């Protein structure tokens, strides 16, 4: 479940932000900055770009808070801005070329020192996905976006999101299989929630 769903920002704080209260802006950054940065880091797999997205997101949030009509929808609004900035980075041609090169050199999970919980394997598996596939996997599986919403972001249909997600599953579970030695059945069955 998305970290964003666990956070509630008081409407009064949002109104103070909208009124130009810089202290309120800082409090909101403290509450949401980590989530925005995690989202960007996981989607882009690049810390410096995640820093940029976090900066861009909060600059937008501070400058555009006055235009937000429904203060209760503040957290989803911040997440949407962050997702759009991630998508913007994803569309940069040099970034796509770079990430493909990095993914090709993503290593073998069995050689990883690895954490006891195996999550580092998953981090590396996630990094090995193509940027678009990773974007879809993260938005659907963690942030809870629907296929239609993801399709809209790419200007495509829901089927595009489904096919990217199926590809993502297959690759992640194949990685898991290599890491654990257990055979995955995912590649043989069309199971796309």
């Amino acid at each position, binding site marked *: 479940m998305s970290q964003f769903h666990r956070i509630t920002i008081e409407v009064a704080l949002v109104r103070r932000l909208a009124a130009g209260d810089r202290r309120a*802006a800082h409090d909101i950054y403290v509450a949401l900055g*980590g989530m925005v*940065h995690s989202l960007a880091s996981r989607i882009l797999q690049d810390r410096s770009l995640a*820093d940029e997205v976090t900066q861009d997101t909060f600059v937008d949030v501070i400058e555009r808070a006055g235009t937000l009509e429904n203060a209760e929808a503040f957290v989803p609004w911040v997440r949407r801005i962050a997702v759009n900035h991630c998508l913007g980075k994803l569309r940069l041609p040099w970034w796509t070329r770079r990430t493909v090169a990095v993914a090709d050199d993503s290593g073998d999970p069995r050689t990883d020192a690895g954490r006891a919980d195996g*999550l580092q394997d998953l981090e590396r598996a996630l990094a090995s996905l193509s940027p678009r596939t990773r974007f879809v996997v993260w938005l659907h599986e963690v942030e809870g976006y629907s296929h239609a919403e993801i399709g809209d972001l790419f200007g495509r249909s829901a089927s595009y999101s489904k096919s990217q997600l199926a590809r993502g599953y297959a690759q992640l*579970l194949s990685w898991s299989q290599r890491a654990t030695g257990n055979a995955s059945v995912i590649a043989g*069955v069309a*199971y796309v929630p």
Partner: protein
Amino acid sequence: MFRDPRGVADDDPDFVAARNEVDWLRQRLAALPPLSPPRDLWDSIEARVARRERRMRAAHRWGAAAATIAGVALTIGVMLQRDANAVASIEMLIGTSQQLERSFGAMVATSADSSEVGRVLAYRIAAVDAALNQMSAQDRADTAESARLWQQRVALLESMLDLERGAGAPLPMI
């Protein structure tokens, strides 16, 4: 090849296994620890916002200054245009006045109107001429006043002409 999911039932062991794998994957993804931004990132955000606000304020100041300059230029332009229009209008009035005087001169050569109205008109024309001469002597460049006087002169001359033609024109309201 993927099988058609529409035909897959919950009791299909492959399907159930795949679903379990996806659920497992989803839980693992959600369990990934949050990644903290650098400590100084807020300072960068604040600095960027402050820079943009300064730029916005400067843009507003420049905008206001530009608007003021544009406004002044427009006002001057309008005034100049108005003056130019007034000058052109005066020249036209002078031309009309001269033409009316020529017409009137030709008419008085053949008839001698000595009515009261004619005398009043002649007197008023003389008064207008005196005012125009005074302006000229004082070297005043009041185009609006000048235009007003020339308009009066033209109107008076037209009335005099009408009177000579026997139209019985009333005294113009000037």
